[in-house]
């Protein structure tokens, strides 16, 4: 019996190592609670737009001028439906700059833009902040148009420019 106890004592370090190995080899049970799932949904989205420029020409204070209806074409080559949001810069650059108005209301040196997807309604306010959907859950090409609401008065007659951005996301 004493010999067996001696053997057992001699085995203790080995057993400790074995236990540690087993414990260290099982971090899965502890780590699981901290895991976060990250998945990606398969789909394919592709858009292009043309033309990429438009000049409204000379504008009268307080007036509004528009592109022709369906002047722009967004070509949709997606395998899934997409949302296309529209936005622009906060400032119209050039000389005495214009502020872009996010409520669609022009003012003193303050301009606004509205757009629509080939309805001629020009009812979508183009904002410089969060984009607003031009089309949602769309499949196929989209033609669209843009309208400028000129300031009610100008600080100067220098050319002003702004950039409109179309942002495509999978629906």
């Amino acid at each position, binding site marked *: 019996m004493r010999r067996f106890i001696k053997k057992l004592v001699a085995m203790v370090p080995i057993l400790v190592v074995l236990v540690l190995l087993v414990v260290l080899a099982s971090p899965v049970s502890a780590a699981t609670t901290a895991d976060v*799932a990250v998945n990606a949904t398969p789909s394919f989205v*592709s858009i292009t737009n043309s033309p990429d420029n438009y000049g409204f020409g000379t504008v009268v204070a307080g007036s509004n001028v528009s592109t022709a209806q369906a002047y722009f074409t967004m070509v949709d080559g997606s395998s899934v439906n997409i949302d296309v949001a529209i936005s622009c810069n906060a400032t119209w650059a050039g000389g005495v700059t214009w502020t872009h108005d996010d409520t669609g209301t022009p003012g003193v040196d303050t301009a606004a833009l509205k757009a629509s997807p080939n309805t001629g309604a020009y009812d979508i306010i183009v904002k410089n902040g*969060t984009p607003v959907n031009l089309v949602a859950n769309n499949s196929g090409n989209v033609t669209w148009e843009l309208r400028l609401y000129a300031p009610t008065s100008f600080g100067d007659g220098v050319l002003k420019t702004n950039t409109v*951005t179309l942002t495509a996301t999978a629906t």
Partner: protein
Amino acid sequence: MRRIVTITLALYLLSLVGCAQVNPPPSIQPEGGVPQVEEQEGLQVGEYSYNIVAIPSFGTEGGQVYVGPGKIWIGYTEGMEMYPGARAEYPIQIINKTNKDKRFLVYFKPGASFNEGNLIAPADVIQSWVEVTKPNPALPPNSTSEILIALDIPKEIPNDEVHFWYLTQDGISHLISIISEVKSGLEEEYKAKYGDVWQGKYQDEVTQEIVTGRVHAIPSGELLLYLGKVGSVSERFLATDGFLQPELLNNLHQEGYAIRGNLTTDDWGFLIAIKDTGQTGLVQTEGAIKWLVRMR
């Protein structure tokens, strides 16, 4: 006795080994396509496949630039939801299939709306939680680059950052109609009051403060800032900004135009946009990847 001890030890060791298999890593069910499962230490990554957004190349460059995946779901497996203190990472890819050198801007963007039902997260809070490892990657022709995006939620989130407000689409339209109405009304008022010099007075006074005539005075600069941020703003932003005063907010809330969200319990989302900085036209395009987050 020896046999008893040996059997006891064997059973003990077996039970330890058995414990390690009690909680296997959760499996993730692919939602479609041809999934390729990747795993990283401490992070379970589900299927990866290309949800590609094309950024058109203008002129005669030929080819296109692609980014993917277009939609990333974080925490949508039961038991593996996101939580304060957790970090989720995912590499997005930019593929330059044109024959030109390209430089891109990879940046955080609040969403316009999420069809999945996720709330638009307040940019003033979560923008600092989003890390873009290479915000201005340059890609030679026919090359691919991986950009690691991380969402790192702090363990402790102040209460006024947890809660946020957003306007429904109806609410936005409602607020805009009020402001437009007030603005146009004020123009007439100033014309009548000041005659030829009305524009100067209007510029001086109205751009400083727009009076709604219904609820409260709204600083116009803050209004523009606010509307620029719609979808949503945190209660911290509202407290320091002073734009949407409690009474106005309550009115909007009661009318169903404003809703209070919670970053730790609601589902929310944001965008990572990728733009070709070489575009010169006044109408430009970009691709944006949806990040949809479900909290534990």
